[in-house]
């Protein structure tokens, strides 16, 4: 939802063009181009003024326009939870003087997002406390998302060149603290479930400082997107959050569909809802199961995984793959669900609740589990919003933000479901919220199943979707469309949108810019767990080393999505 007219008007009054704020009309959300000198003041005002109340910085990213004088745009996406409105700010900078004031002091969420822009574009952020590369390693040369960067280059990371926190060496020389030591958690730790490295400084068994190093799984999804056609990107989105591949594809397709102005047919939308919600269940099952496993409760993990296995069987029957399903296409789905689909979903609706009940019987009121998780990794609502948290983790801190409710897509406004929240904001609350979300998702699936009516599964707009195969084999015109779509890719009108959906981890955003060509000019993915994970080192301080594992599991960090 965009800002109301009067709010926009008061924004224009407060920051008139004479102060270097220029409105860019005709965008999906109100967009303003801002001089960088004004940014700190503007950001402060936008956050603190109750009229605007942009408490959440959802995303920061860069865009490269090599032919422009001010070559880079730093793009900020803001969100207000109270007014449910959004704003986009663009700060242009030139290549010679690529410095922007950091907004870390206003929103802590800027921490890693600004580092990413620095890493990918070489734009510096003055006043950022720890500005260094984040996704690429320290020996990497150049900035990968600049348009003139040749993706064929290879940079070797040699022994001894890896990233070290500046404080890691200090302590070893300090002889008074012989109890203090620096420890590496990961990158290949059994409890990290993916390659993440956390360097912690211990005082006895208590963590006094921590820093994360990520990027081990970085493959520059965004650069690859610029070199592939719009539909070829679908298999790449599967590999973002691979525990719920369906939802990434849906989120991406919805963003592109928004740009194209097409809509998937009703049947495709219902199938998308059913499979997305089943994927959400799977994702929560993985998160809870792995979290329990890490704190020493193996049995429930095996129980709930039975449900996951059966959901994978269903996905495989629909799409042909289990994990990386590539089922979604822009404008609909790759093919129709097989016969027996409804019966299979009904079977799942019968099968999943008893398994979740059994897990709950073992865990929810379990004294050992509660003592390990209650009060551990606590984050208040205000802090969680400040860090840019979304999804189950934010809701466990008491903020009822769910994109399916605030900005419904795929007809979510017509489904009857509730958003689970908890107020304590600790590891146990995150568990409770996820369990309840599984039950709510089942409710949605049940309702969606009733709406499944026969019909087409992909739009018949031949500028977007491949024509049906029987026509391709027999009709010249269909063959020509087919040929053009495959060889050139669909042509997406010039423009930009920020498409966002509720992924399993929270707000999954795709900021998409098209220059009218067959592939995106720029595709930026706002990964929910990136924002969540940047708070992790700060949450660890004061906790025991064993707690760090319990907290990590409850945050559901998926390296494929984190590192992209």
């Amino acid at each position, binding site marked *: 939802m965009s800002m109301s007219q009067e709010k926009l008007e008061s924004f224009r009054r407060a920051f008139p063009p004479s102060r270097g704020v220029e409105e860019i009309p005709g965008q999906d959300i109100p967009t303003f181009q801002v001089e960088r000198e004004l940014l700190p003041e503007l950001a402060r005002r936008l956050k603190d003024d109750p009229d605007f109340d942009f408490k959440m910085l959802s995303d920061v990213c860069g865009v490269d326009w090599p032919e422009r004088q001010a070559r880079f745009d730093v793009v900020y996406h803001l969100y207000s939870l109270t007014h449910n409105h959004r704003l986009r700010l663009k700060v242009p900078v030139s290549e010679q003087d690529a410095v922007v004031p950091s907004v870390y002091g206003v929103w802590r969420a800027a921490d890693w997002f600004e580092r990413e822009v620095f890493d990918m574009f070489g734009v510096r952020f003055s006043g950022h406390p720890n500005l260094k590369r984040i996704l690429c390693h320290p020996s990497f040369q150049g900035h990968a998302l600049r348009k003139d960067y040749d993706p064929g280059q290879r940079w070797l990371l040699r022994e001894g060149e890896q990233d070290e926190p500046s404080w890691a060496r200090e302590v070893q020389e300090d002889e008074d603290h012989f109890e203090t030591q620096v420890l590496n958690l990961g990158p290949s730790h059994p409890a990290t479930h993916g390659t993440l490295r956390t360097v912690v400084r211990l005082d006895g068994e208590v963590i006094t400082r921590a820093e994360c190093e990520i990027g081990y799984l970085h493959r520059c999804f965004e650069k690859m997107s610029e070199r*592939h056609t719009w*539909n*070829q990107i679908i*298999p790449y989105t599967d590999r973002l959050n691979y525990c719920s591949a369906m939802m990434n594809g849906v989120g991406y397709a919805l963003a592109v569909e928004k740009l194209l102005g097409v809509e998937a047919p009703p049947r495709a939308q219902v199938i998308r809802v059913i499979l997305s919600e089943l994927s959400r269940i799977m994702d929560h099952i993985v998160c809870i199961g792995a979290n329990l496993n890490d704190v020493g409760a193996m*049995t429930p993990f095996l*129980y709930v995984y*039975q449900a996951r296995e*059966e959901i994978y*069987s269903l996905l*495989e*029957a*629909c*799409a*042909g*793959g289990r994990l*990386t399903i*590539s089922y979604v296409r822009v404008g609909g789905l*790759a*093919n129709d669900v*097989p*016969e*027996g689909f409804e*019966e*299979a979903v009904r*079977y799942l609706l019968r099968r999943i609740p008893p398994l979740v009940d*059994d897990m709950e019987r*073992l865990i929810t*009121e*379990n*004294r050992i589990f*509660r003592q390990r998780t*209650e009060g551990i990794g606590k984050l208040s609502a205000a802090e969680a919003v400040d860090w840019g948290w979304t999804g189950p983790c934010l809701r466990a801190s008491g903020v*009822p*933000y*769910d994109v399916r*409710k*605030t900005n419904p897509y795929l007809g979510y406004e017509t489904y009857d479901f*509730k*958003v*689970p*929240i*908890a*107020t*304590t904001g600790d590891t146990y*609350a995150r568990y*409770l*919220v996820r*369990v*309840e979300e599984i039950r*709510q998702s089942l409710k949605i699936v049940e309702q969606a199943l009733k709406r499944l009516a026969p019909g087409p599964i992909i739009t018949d707009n031949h500028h977007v979707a*491949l024509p*049906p*195969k*029987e026509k391709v*084999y027999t009709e010249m015109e269909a*063959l020509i469309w*087919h*040929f053009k779509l*495959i*060889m050139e890719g669909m042509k997406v009108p010039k423009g930009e949108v920020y498409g966002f959906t509720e992924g399993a981890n929270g707000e999954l955003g795709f900021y998409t810019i098209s220059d009218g060509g067959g592939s995106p000019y720029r595709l930026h993915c706002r990964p929910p767990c990136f924002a969540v994970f940047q708070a992790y080192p700060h949450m660890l301080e004061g906790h025991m080393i064993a707690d760090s594992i319990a907290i990590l599991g409850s945050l559901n960090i998926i390296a494929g999505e984190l590192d992209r």
Partner: protein
Amino acid sequence: MRNTDVVVCDPKPLRFWQRFYLVEVLKGLGVTLRHFLGNLFGRKYTVTVEWPEVKREYSDRLRGRHVLLTREDGSPRCVACYMCETACPADCIHIEAEEDPTSTVEWEKRPKVFNIDLLRCVFCGLCVDACPKEAIIMTRHHEMAFTGREEAVATIDTLLQKGPIDRIDLGYRPYYGRESRPITLPIPVRVEPAPKAPRPDLAATP
């Protein structure tokens, strides 16, 4: 958001008997025992299979190893149009075309070289969707093992269909005019016949 849309699931305080360790342990044991007995007499909860003796069925959309279909006379249906190569997001198809001496109005080229690097392939099926001649389709063959990178590059000889179409374990392919097999959950499993003689290398070990 309206308040009615929210459900608060805060932790409940532990009740009196929950504070006693023993009662909860016994209740928990009840759950595990039920699963144990259910699995012992009837595999009620199990989804695991004793692979490779027992295999689970896959749907006929499974995206496994590719096959290049042939025409009735045994020549490849492929007309070397490069559409699959262009559509492939992993850049793993390599085609070289040549003039087809048997060409008709319908086609004039055929592939001289058709390589798929199965180590690069992500088995997404976009090549199948792209083919205008239904020449490339996928089978359900997915248990692949190679001893070297060169071996993992499937060439036209290994890709080309051998034998009649009903002998191929058909997987992902364009759907039209045929009924696809319905899905049933739980997925059925089939027991592979035990190998006739023990493998020599296994037999040799004491």
